[in-house]
């Protein structure tokens, strides 16, 4: 944990500027994308525990810079603004298909819950970024 945490830097400013513009209206998603290991203690909800038995908490930037990380979003059908987001990471050996299907399934579950609870239509989930590369 210490080794990888020490290697993680903040997200590139141009990427964050784009994220802040695209995800405006969902501050939690912006903070999730921005989070580095140091943020996990203060805001555990921005981070994920990828190893249940050994409590290995990772932030999106750690996943993006040290492994394969995917950030997915779902948009309002009427306005095209982002309504919700999900992310996860996996080791490079697992390949992109593994982590993308995992994140998209989780995002669709959130989308289904949102639509059902709010009676508001959302577009199907899409990959917003692979690591720090916005699609």
């Amino acid at each position: 944990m210490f080794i990888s945490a020490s290697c993680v830097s903040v997200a590139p400013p141009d990427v964050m500027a784009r994220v802040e513009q695209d995800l405006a209206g969902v501050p939690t998603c912006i903070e999730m994308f921005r989070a580095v290991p140091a943020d996990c203690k203060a805001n555990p909800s921005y981070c994920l525990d990828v190893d249940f038995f050994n409590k290995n908490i990772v932030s999106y930037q750690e996943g993006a810079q040290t492994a394969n990380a995917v950030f997915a979003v779902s948009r309002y059908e009427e306005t095209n603004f982002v309504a919700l987001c999900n992310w996860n990471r996996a080791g490079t050996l697992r390949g992109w298909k593994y982590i993308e299907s995992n994140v998209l399934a989780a995002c669709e579950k959130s989308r289904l819950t949102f639509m059902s609870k709010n009676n508001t239509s959302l577009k199907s989930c899409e990959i917003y970024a692979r690591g720090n590369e916005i699609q």
Partner: protein
Amino acid sequence: MKKILLTLLVFGIVGCASVPPEQQLISYFNKQAYNSDITSDPELARWAAFGFLNGIIYLDHPNGNRIFTNVEINRLKGIQIFEELNKIGDKVSQANLGIIYRSGNGVDQDLRKSIDLLQPVKDDYYDAAGEYGVAIHQMLKMNLIPEGEKKYLIDEMLSSLELSAANNYIPAHNSLSQLYREGIYINTDLAKSNFHLEKSKVLAEKKIKLARNIAESRMLISQYSKTFSDEASRFATISMIVSFGAIGAMSYSQGYQQCSVGCSPPSVTDLLNWGVL
């Protein structure tokens, strides 16, 4: 070696117990819905009744997600539960029975019975108010209302439909549009008729789109979950082969000790930290 055996045992138990939530929900529904004492918990009984009527159920999972699944449609059973709940004074069930008898969904349509059921609850639920108004409108069109009751029921119909339409209930908008266009029970007002017709169209389109998106989302969840599971199995097969090699190597290593981080050979935690797993 002990640790490896223990881990395998834990994974075996967890693996066997991890039935998909949708499957767990079906088992829960089947267990609860056919319980003869179900009406002792009206909320649960209503949930089961809606499941029997619509063929779809959902439950909010502790992780925050809403889990949906299909169940067998059994309208008679659903109506029977609502009837039992109505007998013990459950207002929601009374309103739902009124709606069922108005639409004739699963029963023979009985507008008089529908009006009698909906009248006491029309001020509590806007959909009950709308259905009450629609039922009166239908009875008026079929000339089923005695002259002496007409004036009172027309007033009731209009106030109920207006209340329900204000809450975006589509059948109430449709009924009002017809009433203002026909000009039989109220003065003709084409502007108002068109307003309600347009409103009804917009709301119906929105509702259809939402239903379509919900169906699409459920389909995508199973599609992505299948891809994920296939990829995980593929990786697990490769990992197992590698693990056998690693276990073999470790069993020959004299210096092997219990280690979680910074191990040689690297532990699972090390591999996770390095972004390999």
